[in-house]
């Protein structure tokens, strides 16, 4: 009997594709953001309001994943930006190959901002790198404030936590400060914004984060470009 050391990652093939995607995003100057949450936390609603607020000249595109139907793609396509539905069949997450396949029909040089709306699932998508610049986790106030502790992985891996549906706070026994403290316990550096896709002004903190993130990404790309 012989014991051979193995140094690779289990999801080696996905990792390889993710690194290729990351390289392509870098070359095309595309900021890719991967939105992850339970079903019903408001990923599509947040994206709808985001697209509605963007100037029509913004070069933004969306890939949206679900097990079945193209309902989300139809909801998001109303805003005039390129949108594709990824129907996974039964798979509980998006993987690098699905992204690669759907990007084939787009010219990444024409896209500055790419949203990937993952399959509604707080567990499995966190294992799959899609080459994104940041993972963003959403949690709504109709869920439990201990969710960051119950599902630590995605909070650990996300750069931003968007607390959604905050217009419902008066009606639910949800302590937003506790939810945020729980997320910071898992990931002390995580950024947090509160959002509502229906209340006036409810999108401001998120849109401000998005503007700052886009500006920082462009600046970094410019610095990298001048070094080369």
């Amino acid at each position, binding site marked *: 009997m*012989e014991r051979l050391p*193995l140094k690779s990652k*289990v999801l080696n093939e996905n990792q390889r594709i993710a690194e290729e995607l990351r390289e392509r995003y870098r070359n095309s100057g595309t900021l890719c953001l991967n939105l992850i949450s339970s079903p019903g936390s408001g990923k599509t609603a947040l994206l709808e309001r985001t697209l509605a607020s963007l100037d029509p000249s913004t070069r933004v595109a969306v890939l949206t994943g679900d097990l079945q139907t193209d309902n989300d793609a139809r909801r998001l396509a109303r805003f005039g930006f390129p949108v594709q539905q990824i129907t996974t069949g039964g798979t*509980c997450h998006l993987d690098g190959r699905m992204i690669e396949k759907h990007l084939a029909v787009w010219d990444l040089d024409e896209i500055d901002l790419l949203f990937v709306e993952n399959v509604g699932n707080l567990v499995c998508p966190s294992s799959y790198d899609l080459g994104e610049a940041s993972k963003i986790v959403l949690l709504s106030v109709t869920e439990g404030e201990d969710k960051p502790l119950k599902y630590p992985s995605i909070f*650990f891996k996300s750069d931003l936590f968007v607390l959604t549906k905050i217009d419902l706070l008066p009606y639910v026994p949800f302590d937003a400060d506790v939810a945020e403290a729980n997320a910071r316990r898992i990931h002390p550096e995580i950024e947090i914004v509160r959002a509502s896709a229906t209340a006036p002004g409810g999108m401001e903190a998120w849109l401000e984060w998005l503007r700052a993130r886009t500006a920082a990404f462009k600046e970094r790309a410019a610095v990298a470009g001048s070094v080369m």
Partner: protein
Amino acid sequence: MHELSIAESILDAVRAELLRYPGAKPLRVGLRIGVLAAVDIDSLSFCFESVVRGTDWDSLTLDAKSCPPTRRCLACLGDFESVEYNTLCPRCGDGNTISTGGDELDFDYLEVETDGASSTQVQSTE
């Protein structure tokens, strides 16, 4: 839920590794899985048994080791295991610490049975 696809990825990787060791029979594959990797070890073991059953490798077993979250203190450079997600350095009490592990989903080793001939072949190819 995604443990089945992970089990299949493990089998693919074993298959690829064995191309370098013709004639070798895989006995056990070792993994390191962080508690923050969002992978349930029991569920993965169950899925893995299902994917190897009925194949030539149905005696292949999984040895998945759970790895705790670990952090490094930037003040004293000490490494520590983060218990209950505590981020304060237990040695010097500093709060400026960074994550160094706990989300692994890595291979560790592959145990194989080789006969003399195939072992020689392994050496000759390297």
